[in-house]
């Protein structure tokens, strides 16, 4: 297997399409025979990051680089950025408004979930230019 590179658009506030990037990533990983438990860790993480863009940010992109050994995912948006990343990483911290909570989001567990499911995680954010969530899941660490 050679390296596969994927690039999906994420549309802010588009709840019909929300999740389609992670779904596309999942289908590719299934096709090339990645182990199901590893796929779950990757797509739970990418879906949390994707939903954060849909819910909290602006339009963005999900890019993935898949090799036989690991999957590297980068989810990037164009703002408004996170004031305090350390705070945002804490379980239970959320700024989601009521309208978003009614949809089932806003437990403040998305970023902590990504942390739990990945081998490496980097969250970089600048106000107001945007946020990049970058993570790696290795195949060997099942």
């Amino acid at each position: 297997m050679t390296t596969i590179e994927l690039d999906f658009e994420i549309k802010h506030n588009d709840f019909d399409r929300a999740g389609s990037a992670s779904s596309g990533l999942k289908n590719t990983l299934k096709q090339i025979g990645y182990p199901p438990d590893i796929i779950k860790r990757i797509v739970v993480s990418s879906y949390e990051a994707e939903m954060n863009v849909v819910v909290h940010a602006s339009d963005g992109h999900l890019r993935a680089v898949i090799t036989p050994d690991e999957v590297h995912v980068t989810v990037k948006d164009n703002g408004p950025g996170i004031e305090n990343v350390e705070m945002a990483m804490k379980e239970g911290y959320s700024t989601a408004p009521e309208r978003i909570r009614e949809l089932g989001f806003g437990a403040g567990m998305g970023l902590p979930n990504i942390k739990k499911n990945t081998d490496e995680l980097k969250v970089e954010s600048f106000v107001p230019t945007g946020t990049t969530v970058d993570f790696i899941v290795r195949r060997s660490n099942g």
Partner: protein
Amino acid sequence: MKPYTIKLVIYGERMNLAELKNLLNCPFCSQQPGVKDVKSICASDLMSEVLLLADRDSVIITNLVNLQAIRTAEMVESSCIVFVRGKTPTKDMVSLAEKNGITLLVTEYDMLETCGILYGRGLQHKKVAHDNH
């Protein structure tokens, strides 16, 4: 009521989907082929909690009737979603679920009643690792 999450696990004899449908008296069902027996359920109205706690091939029980509930099930490879309080999914939800081999059921019971019925059938409560609810 504040959202809560309950995880129930079957140790020993498993339950099949027909039995689940019967127990919950489901008026609506969009059944997909190849559904495995029920090993565990995850009941929640918070998608991040489902993403954290639901096992592959689990059943999700929720009040949330929207496309994100289906997407969440897709990511964790849940085989079935039970919508409580008689809320029927839309055509879009049914077709997204079909595409992903996810069976959808609707029960008139609310979430607590549904969990109670399954608990009574022998599913055991699995304490979840965190306690923010």
